[in-house]
């Protein structure tokens, strides 16, 4: 490429920054020697710059800018299901499904399901003695264990991934029907980091959402599930009163569950920690003044 015709056919590529390597080197070498081609490049550059100077072609009208900002600010985090879809799925899961089948087929299915439930109940009661119903874990505690296990199986991806209690609390605001503020003892006290928050998400419970927060303490997972005390009342298990609160301890599928209600909210903590799993309480009670509180929850020799 060394004659002027070749060079001029490539002026646009040169000015558009599309010439590379040896093509670019030869082009620039030719320009160094050829006044005529240099003038042609200058003329073409002036033309392209005059076109570029007309930018912006049309500034967006203020109303369009406002509307676009509204669209963008209303954008949910990526992959978060929109609230209406959540509500629809929740309705389907908790309400609609059993009633959506109609006619004889529905009746037949319902009858078959009832027979299976009765047979399963008979089989279960034949295999296992019925315990004290007052000792049975609450539905909420069972849901918390199920949530913990589903997370461990990778079936519950987080909707927010953060190690900040403040971020998690903000994320839940407006998504659950109760106010949830996670304490931030570790940051405020500057003490040794005993645990990390991994993330959180909503989980369905009784036609509503409960808050699920996942923690890790020295590599061991801890699940905290929170709902309003109208939706769940802790019950059963071993009840221990401490500082005016009643804690219900269960062992379900080998996991330690602590459930309690306090100031309008009901909590369930699930872990595979030792004893009653009371060390899982540090996720909210990591302050020095709470050491005695956690110590209170340890089983004493006479209760072991």
């Amino acid at each position, binding site marked *: 490429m060394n004659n002027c015709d070749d060079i001029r056919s490539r002026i*646009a*590529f040169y000015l*558009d*920054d*599309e010439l590379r390597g040896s093509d670019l080197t030869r082009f620039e070498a030719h320009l160094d020697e050829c006044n005529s081609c240099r003038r042609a490049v200058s003329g073409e550059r002036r*033309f*392209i710059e*005059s*076109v*570029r*100077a*007309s*930018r*912006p*072609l*049309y*500034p*967006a*009208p203020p*109303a*369009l*800018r406002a*509307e*676009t*900002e509204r*669209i*963008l*600010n*209303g*954008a*949910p*985090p*990526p*992959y978060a299901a929109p609230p209406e879809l959540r509500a629809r799925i929740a309705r389907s899961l908790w309400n609609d499904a059993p009633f959506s089948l109609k006619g004889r087929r529905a009746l037949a299915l319902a009858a078959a399901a009832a027979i299976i439930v009765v047979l399963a109940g008979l089989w279960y009661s034949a295999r296992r003695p019925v315990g004290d119903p007052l000792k049975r874990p609450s539905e909420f505690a069972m849901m918390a264990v199920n949530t913990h296990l589903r997370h461990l199986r990778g079936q519950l991806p987080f909707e*927010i*991934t*953060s190690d*900040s209690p403040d*971020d998690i609390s903000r*994320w839940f605001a407006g998504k659950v029907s109760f106010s949830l503020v996670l304490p931030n003892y570790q940051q405020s006290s500057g003490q040794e980091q005993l645990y990390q928050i991994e*993330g959180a998400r909503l989980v369905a419970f009784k036609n509503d959402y409960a808050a699920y927060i996942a923690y890790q303490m020295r590599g061991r997972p801890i699940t905290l599930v929170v709902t309003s005390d109208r939706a769940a009342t802790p019950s059963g298990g071993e009840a221990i009163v401490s500082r005016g609160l009643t804690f219900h301890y269960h062992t379900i599928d080998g996991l330690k569950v602590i459930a309690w209600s306090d100031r309008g909210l009901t909590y369930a903590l699930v872990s595979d920690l030792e004893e009653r799993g009371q060390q899982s309480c540090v996720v909210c009670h990591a302050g020095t003044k709470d050491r005695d509180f956690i110590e209170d929850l340890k089983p004493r020799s006479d209760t072991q």
Partner: protein
Amino acid sequence: MSEAEKISADFRKAAIEHLDALYGFAMTLTRNETEAQDLVQETYLRAVRAFGQLLPDSNLKGWLFAICRNVWLNQLRHARSGPRFVELDAEEEGCAGWFDSVASNPYTVFVRKLEREEVRAAIESLPRLYREVVVLRDLEGFSYQQIAAILGCPAGTVMSRLNRARERLRSLLDQWQAGAVEQSRQAREA
């Protein structure tokens, strides 16, 4: 702020920076303010919904422009199958009339002093296929490869189309300059 929320906030901030450019491109496609505004709104709505599909380090601006053009093409296809008449400008559509209107319009005589206005008017008068390639390259600075991705055509087509578009544009602006010189001469003689 979580990683996901930070990405989301970064996306919002970056996306709004391209609003003027996107609106200009929408005007280039539709040549109608209302349609351009609708097109831009639809583009951002789709971008918000599909934001999760955008790979890290992707060119957000190019992605928004590609969505904009795809939405517009879909609307065009829909309009073609419906009863509404839509003006479709072909690549070989002429731009006769632009020069006459520029030369004879007193307002245009006034704005002649502003070269930007002249260039803008000349771009507007180009056929749509030329218009969009000039806007994407010369105003928005996309590379040939990026333009090819936005338009869904080979880079070679972008080069040849851009070349023809610039020739047409240069010719229009040369006509304007010649007209301005002639008007100035007549004014001196009068």
